């Protein structure tokens, strides 16, 4: 678009916000490659954003807004390197100045530069999710640098203040600078733990949003979409990693049930009671394709499926069943068994017991659950009495069942869940 006469400032700001969501990761990655410092790159990228906020309302929105932002951020980076002798000598030591000269020559064609930065964007994701940072810092930095969210949006999504998020981000950037974290993609033995750290961050963001949707809190529910978007970015940039596709499939299947999991009065609707016509079948189709991709990347002779692939495979058993009665429970029991081997956990044992109750009957499952009760491992976990109550009810032991639901209702933190458990305790469900 050629400069228009006096576009409205808030309109321009909204467009810039949209462009920023699309381009932030690329702009930051280009600059990070140039200055060799992720924290500094984020500062310079933000400077470019602010400059756009000042200039675009006056001059109009540039024809290629992403290229404009990249060019501006890069120009600021070069200025900074010229001014800062220490930075220049540091870059010279690591051989960066050569690249810088090339970058200056190529300044004419920013579109091309943006085409070829997949690895740098991926490296930036690894940097934002660096294990040296706390989980909260990783989440904030990822949403900001990769998702292009503002500090205010992040604060609102995580029910905290802007200054808390801003502090988290600035501390995180300092840590990355001190540790000399660059946008390199880890390799060899380093890759697996670093990738696990990235996937953890994405799944934490997803779960924050998923939990929020049960309270009809759609603003925070956006986090779910944001996490899925990050998952899609990762699956395009790291297409050889089965766990990346596994996580994407898992998130998409869970998200596909959003519409069905809340009842008329805002109460939680359990998976098996959900109206499957309300599931998002486009998302499910997408997820099953991602899961197939993940499985096809595993070599059955030597690779065990990872935790995300297994959880996605379990979720897929439900998604493939047209009715609750058609669920392949025996396969779910087997998958939970595999998951329990690579990630031993009483919560997984409890889930396996639920599947077992449908595959072989409530009595077999109750035995497992009573074993968990005796171990004391899940003493504070409301789903233990909730599941036990369900099994007892199915065995016709109603009084014992109601007592368990009442106990579970006392223990849960979630309003919708508490309402459901109270109704069951009163014998209404």
């Amino acid at each position, binding site marked *: 678009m050629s400069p228009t006469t006096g576009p409205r400032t808030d309109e321009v700001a909204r467009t810039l916000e949209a462009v920023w969501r699309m381009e932030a990761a690329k702009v930051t990655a280009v600059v990070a490659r140039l200055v060799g410092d992720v924290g500094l790159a984020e500062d310079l990228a933000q400077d470019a954003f602010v400059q756009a906020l000042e200039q675009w309302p006056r001059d109009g929105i540039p024809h290629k807004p992403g290229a404009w932002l990249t060019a501006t951020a890069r120009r600021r980076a070069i200025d900074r390197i010229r001014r800062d002798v220490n930075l220049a000598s540091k870059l010279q030591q690591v051989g960066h100045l050569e690249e810088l000269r090339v970058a200056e020559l190529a300044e004419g064609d920013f579109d091309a530069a943006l085409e070829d930065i997949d690895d740098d964007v991926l490296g930036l994701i690894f940097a934002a999710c660096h294990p040296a940072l706390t989980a909260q810092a990783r989440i904030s930095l990822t949403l900001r640098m990769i998702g292009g969210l503002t500090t205010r949006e992040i604060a609102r999504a995580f029910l905290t203040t802007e200054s808390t998020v801003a502090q988290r981000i600035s501390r995180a950037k300092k840590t990355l600078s001190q540790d000399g974290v660059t946008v390199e993609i880890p390799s060899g033995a380093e890759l697996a733990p670093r990738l696990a750290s990235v996937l953890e961050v994405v799944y934490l963001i997803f779960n924050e949003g998923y939990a929020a949707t049960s309270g009809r809190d759609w603003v925070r529910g956006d986090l779910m979409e944001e996490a899925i978007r990050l998952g899609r*970015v990762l699956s*395009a940039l790291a297409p050889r990693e089965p766990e990346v596709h596994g996580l994407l499939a898992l998130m998409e299947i869970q998200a596909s049930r959003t*519409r069905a999991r809340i009842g008329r009065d805002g109460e939680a609707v359990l998976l098996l009671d959900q109206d499957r*016509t*309300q599931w998002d079948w*486009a998302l499910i189709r997408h997820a099953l394709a991602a899961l197939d991709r993940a499985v096809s990347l595993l070599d059955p002779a030597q690779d065990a499926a990872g935790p995300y692939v297994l959880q996605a495979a379990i979720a897929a058993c439900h998604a493939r069943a047209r009715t609750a009665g058609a669920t392949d429970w025996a396969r779910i029991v087997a998958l939970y068994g595999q998951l329990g081997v690579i990630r031993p956990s009483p919560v997984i044992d409890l889930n396996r017991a639920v599947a077992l109750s449908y595959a072989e009957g409530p009595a077999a499952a109750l035995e497992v659950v009573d074993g968990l009760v005796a171990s004391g491992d899940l003493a504070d976990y409301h789903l233990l009495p909730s599941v036990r109550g369900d099994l007892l009810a199915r065995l016709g032991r109603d009084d014992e069942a109601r007592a368990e639901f009442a106990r579970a209702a006392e223990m849960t933190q979630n309003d919708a869940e508490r309402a459901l458990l109270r109704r069951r305790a009163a014998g209404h469900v």
Partner: protein
Amino acid sequence: MRFMILVPASPETEQGRPGTGQQFADMHAYNEQMLKAGVFIDGQGLHPSAKGARVTWEDGDWGVTDGPFAEARELIAGFTIIEVSSREEAIEWLRKWPTSCAPEPGLALELRQVLAPEDFTATHPETVSTGRLQP
């Protein structure tokens, strides 16, 4: 939020002529870019309307009319579905649409938002989970 981009038909698409190599390459690169940005959900081209049909409900009966249909202006030749954070972002993606695949003068790429759960809670709170409403 999810958006559908409707691509209008042209005399070429209605004759079932494939696009040029350049158009294919440009569209592929565009879809790839959206995929890497995590926004691409689906994109498909459609056969000419000659292979389609129109089904109407009149006088208590279904009527089926086979294609082709004459009003090229009202026909679509394909669609793309994207998931983005705002309407503005959807429009910015449209502005990146390959110009080699731009519609003829007088025709337009049409952007439509796909209804989502929150749209129903706002307007029909009573029908959200009863399964009565089939969007």
